[in-house]
């Protein structure tokens, strides 16, 4: 029996649930992970990643010394360097001075528009706050974004438009107070496993009813009263038809609509044509199921809607989310316990990174960069001369890479993200990455994106630094330093402050912002002074249990559910939306709809999980294909297949399974050797700029086993 040297409480770095952890450490090794049973978020339960997935900390491939590329890279001819002999080990001084020199040179030559940064939804609030502050105050650029653009941008925009807020309205644990919940576009059991447990308990032990709307037969379907197997991208007709039924059968909440909403009359007219018959013709879902779902949702006492990326990741993602918001506004299932509109956030800190201003259109706290009053406020807070901050909206994640060209974006700093896995249409992304003039990567491993960099800044892992994460239900929780950083790795906030000091000196500006932070606690305090929702979040208050934002002052207890009295924009607003088909529909040449997503065992681009024993559980990519389709194509289980779209081709194994419906295939996004995003389409939602990951057309042909990509040894032991 091993006696731990210490047991350190912290927060899980994987998904947005924000499970509380205890790291058991012996001789600086995390040999066991437990969770306190009294933890309000997860009650001692964890998933496989949370309990076993931390060996990446010690992986031999982890970079723990600053690196500079041996061969100078020129825009247009930039190459990937995975091998360590293509890099020179350097001191921190050299790495940061080099980064400073190159960035300042480009900034002084080409101006603010040439500078761009990807912040990181895995890093802490403090890390993100500082990095966006660096680019805003020193380079006067708003080209700041992170992967929220690729996940819930559509939901955020729709919620902002309709309600004026953009987070989960309720707490996931409240699901046991729901009589009915509707889960759509979410494979909750695999992507938010602990919230799925609460949902299963609500069904099994508390008598709740579950409606699943999803083109895949995800595990939650096993717990559902109704499953509506829609075709990908047909959410607007389906949910608008539910609204149509609710209006026609007068099941709406008259009182709520009168008191809390606007635009109801026009909305009724706008959904006149969304009959269940019309929705059936488009979505493939039996009209009676749609009618039944509408009645169940409208007549429940407390009904909640939970959704993940199946809703926003479409070229009409904002409309999709809006069609869900309409249902809640019609029925008044919002602003009470056990109800609400709940977008399940993917990354551990995607809520926090957005709150901390890692966004191109907003300062921290969603204060718009193009509003004079908020710009003035931040100029004062950051000690910038009046008019100094850039008032123009910055570029979003996908736009940053598309704008890489002479006269456009020239220098890119990537903290912890991996666009070479996570962007749609990767062949295009590759081309754009090759055009960057200067690229700095700040990460744990040389991933597909970092391999393009000029300089690599080795960051401390989440177990090696202090900070806070904000989880999907807006709870700000502590991340604690359990280990000393490996080698020379440094915490992101320290790297950023050090870099900022050097850049500031080189630029020689008159006025300087504050960078001499001694701890992340001080960073959060500065953030609390400019973000009213975080004003009362102090380290001293969240040592034991996190607080749910908004926390308006030092005595405010936090906010478990939002909108009890009113919406931030006043009245909830109905919008006139119409069905727009996905950009690419199946045809004779490309007859299948490809949809993409995550697996239980892996995490996004795989930088962490594919450097972990988790890779043993699910070691290679597989395409999920329905038995009926497989029989028609004469494809057997585990056989190699070649999957092509108009943009790329991958070869991978087939998994013949009823997890997916006829005509729809699924590829997980984690595997670089058969990257799903080589196939996906880079069509964007016009409002939210989110790409259409969830629907593109592909064709599938049998292939030989020898055509399968070789087992990737890079990233494994």
């Amino acid at each position, binding site marked *: *029996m*091993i006696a731990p040297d210490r047991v350190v409480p912290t927060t899980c770095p994987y998904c947005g649930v924000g499970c509380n952890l205890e790291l058991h450490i*012996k*001789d600086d*090794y995390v*040999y*066991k*992970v*437990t*969770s306190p*049973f009294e933890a309000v978020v997860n*009650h*001692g*339960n*964890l*998933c*496989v990643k949370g*309990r*076993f997935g931390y*060996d990446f900390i*010690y*992986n*031999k491939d982890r970079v723990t010394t600053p690196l500079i590329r041996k061969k100078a890279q020129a825009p247009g001819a930039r190459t990937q360097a995975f091998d360590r002999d293509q890099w020179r080990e350097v001191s921190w001084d050299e790495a940061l001075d080099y980064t400073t020199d190159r960035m300042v040179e480009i900034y002084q030559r080409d101006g603010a528009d040439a500078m761009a940064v990807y912040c990181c939804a895995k890093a802490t609030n403090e890390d993100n706050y500082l990095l966006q502050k660096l680019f805003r105050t020193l380079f006067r650029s708003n080209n700041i974004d992170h992967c929220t653009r690729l996940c819930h941008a559509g939901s955020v925009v729709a919620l902002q438009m309709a309600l004026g807020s953009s987070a989960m309205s309720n707490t996931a644990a409240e699901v046991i107070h729901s009589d009915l919940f509707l889960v759509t576009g979410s494979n909750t059991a695999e992507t938010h*496993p602990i919230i799925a*447990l609460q949902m*299963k*308990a609500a069904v*099994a*032990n508390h008598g709740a009813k579950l409606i699943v709307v999803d083109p895949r*037969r995800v*595990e939650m*379907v*096993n*717990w559902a009263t109704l499953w509506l197997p829609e075709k990908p991208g047909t959410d607007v007709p389906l949910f608008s038809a539910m609204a149509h039924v609710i209006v026609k059968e007068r099941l709406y909440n008259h009182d709520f609509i009168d008191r809390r909403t606007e635009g109801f009359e026009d909305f009724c007219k706008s959904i006149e044509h969304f009959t269940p018959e019309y929705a059936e013709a488009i979505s493939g879902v039996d009209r009676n199921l749609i009618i039944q779902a509408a009645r169940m949702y409208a007549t429940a006492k407390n009904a909640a809607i939970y959704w993940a990326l199946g809703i926003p990741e479409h070229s009409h993602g904002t409309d999709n989310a809006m069609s869900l918001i309409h249902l809640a506004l019609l029925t008044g299932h919002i602003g009470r316990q056990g109800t609400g509109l709940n977008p399940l956030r993917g990354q551990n800190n995607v809520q926090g990174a957005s709150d901390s201003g890692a966004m191109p259109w907003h300062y921290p706290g969603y204060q718009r960069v193009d509003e004079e009053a908020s710009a003035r406020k931040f100029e004062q807070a950051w000690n910038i001369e009046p008019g100094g901050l850039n008032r123009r909206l910055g570029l979003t994640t996908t736009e940053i890479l598309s704008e890489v060209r002479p006269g456009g974006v020239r220098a890119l700093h990537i903290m912890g993200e991996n666009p070479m896995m996570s962007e749609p249409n990767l062949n295009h992304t590759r081309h754009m990455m090759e055009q960057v003039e200067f690229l700095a990567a700040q990460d744990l491993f040389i991933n597909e994106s970092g391999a393009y960099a000029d300089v690599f800044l080795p960051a401390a892992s989440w177990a090696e630094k202090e900070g806070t994460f904000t989880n999907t239900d807006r709870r700000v929780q502590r991340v604690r330093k359990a280990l000393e950083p490996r080698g020379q790795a440094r915490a992101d906030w320290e790297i950023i402050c050090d870099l900022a000091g050097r850049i500031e000196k080189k630029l020689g500006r008159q006025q300087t912002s504050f960078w001499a932070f001694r701890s992340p606690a001080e960073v959060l305090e500065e953030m609390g002074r400019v973000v009213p929702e975080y004003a009362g979040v102090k380290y001293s208050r969240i040592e034991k249990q996190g607080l749910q934002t908004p926390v308006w002052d030092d005595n405010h207890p936090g906010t478990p559910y939002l909108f009890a009295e009113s919406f931030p924009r006043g009245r909830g607003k109905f919008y006139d939306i119409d069905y727009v088909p996905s950009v690419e529909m199946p045809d004779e040449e490309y007859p299948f709809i490809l949809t993409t997503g995550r697996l*239980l*065992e892996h995490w996004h681009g795989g930088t962490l999980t594919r450097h972990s*024993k988790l*890779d*043993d*559980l*699910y*070691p290679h990519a597989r395409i999920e294909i329905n*038995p009926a389709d497989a029989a028609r194509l004469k494809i057997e289980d585990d056989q190699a297949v070649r999957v092509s779209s108009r943009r790329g081709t991958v070869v991978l194994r087939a*998994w*013949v*399974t*009823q*997890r997916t419906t006829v005509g729809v295939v699924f590829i997980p996004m984690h595997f670089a050797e058969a990257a799903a995003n080589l196939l996906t389409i880079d069509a964007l939602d016009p409002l939210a700029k989110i790409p259409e990951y969830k629907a593109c057309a592909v064709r599938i042909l049998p292939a030989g086993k020898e055509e399968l990509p070789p087992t990737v040894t890079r990233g*494994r*032991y």
Partner: protein
Amino acid sequence: MADVTLTIDGSSVSVPAGTTILKAAERLGRRVPTICYHDYCTANGLCRICVVEVDGVKPLLPACLSRVSEGMKVSTSSVRTERSRRTILEMLDSAVDLSEAPEIQKFIGDYHADRARFPEAERREVPVRDDNPMYIRDYAKCILCWRCVQVCADDAQFTYAINFKGRGFDTGIGTFFDKPMPETSCVFCGQCVGVCPTGALKSKREALLEQGVSFDEILQATRGGKKRRRKSP
């Protein structure tokens, strides 16, 4: 719910109806010993270490399950309960490896259990099951407390990968048809590892470290687990 007043070890206490004797005693600061009971699992009264004596009731009652009633007189420590607890500990100790169950070890000392009382007892000796990359199962240490089965089922995970198997002395925890874990519905959440009181379930990393394998060797070990085959629904 209305409050119920009862007497525990001579002290009077009022608790809501439906409270267990165990929780009512905790109100008075009296700690009834428990082994299979876990605050976050359904209580089943399997191990019987928590038995108490109730006036007018002939058998000893498990405190973890029995609900209070008005005027009840409970004794948490009597000659009968002490003898019963001691015997339970002696029987457990005679058959199961309790070396990694410090709480039970402490009870053995507290209750003066005679570790040589059943010298002829057959020990439960089963090989360690090491069939997946995440955790090992060493059922020689299993006291059949049922926690792992319950958290795998309706207490937490709703996955139903493991259950009791066999009868009598051969009762154990197993998978359906004794399949290796990767071939079952197991999702490797390790909820079972989290509630195991005796070290029978343990993260593989921890087990290897105990065997003296260095952490570097553990990390470099070739990929071990069998290929995962997920069942179609």
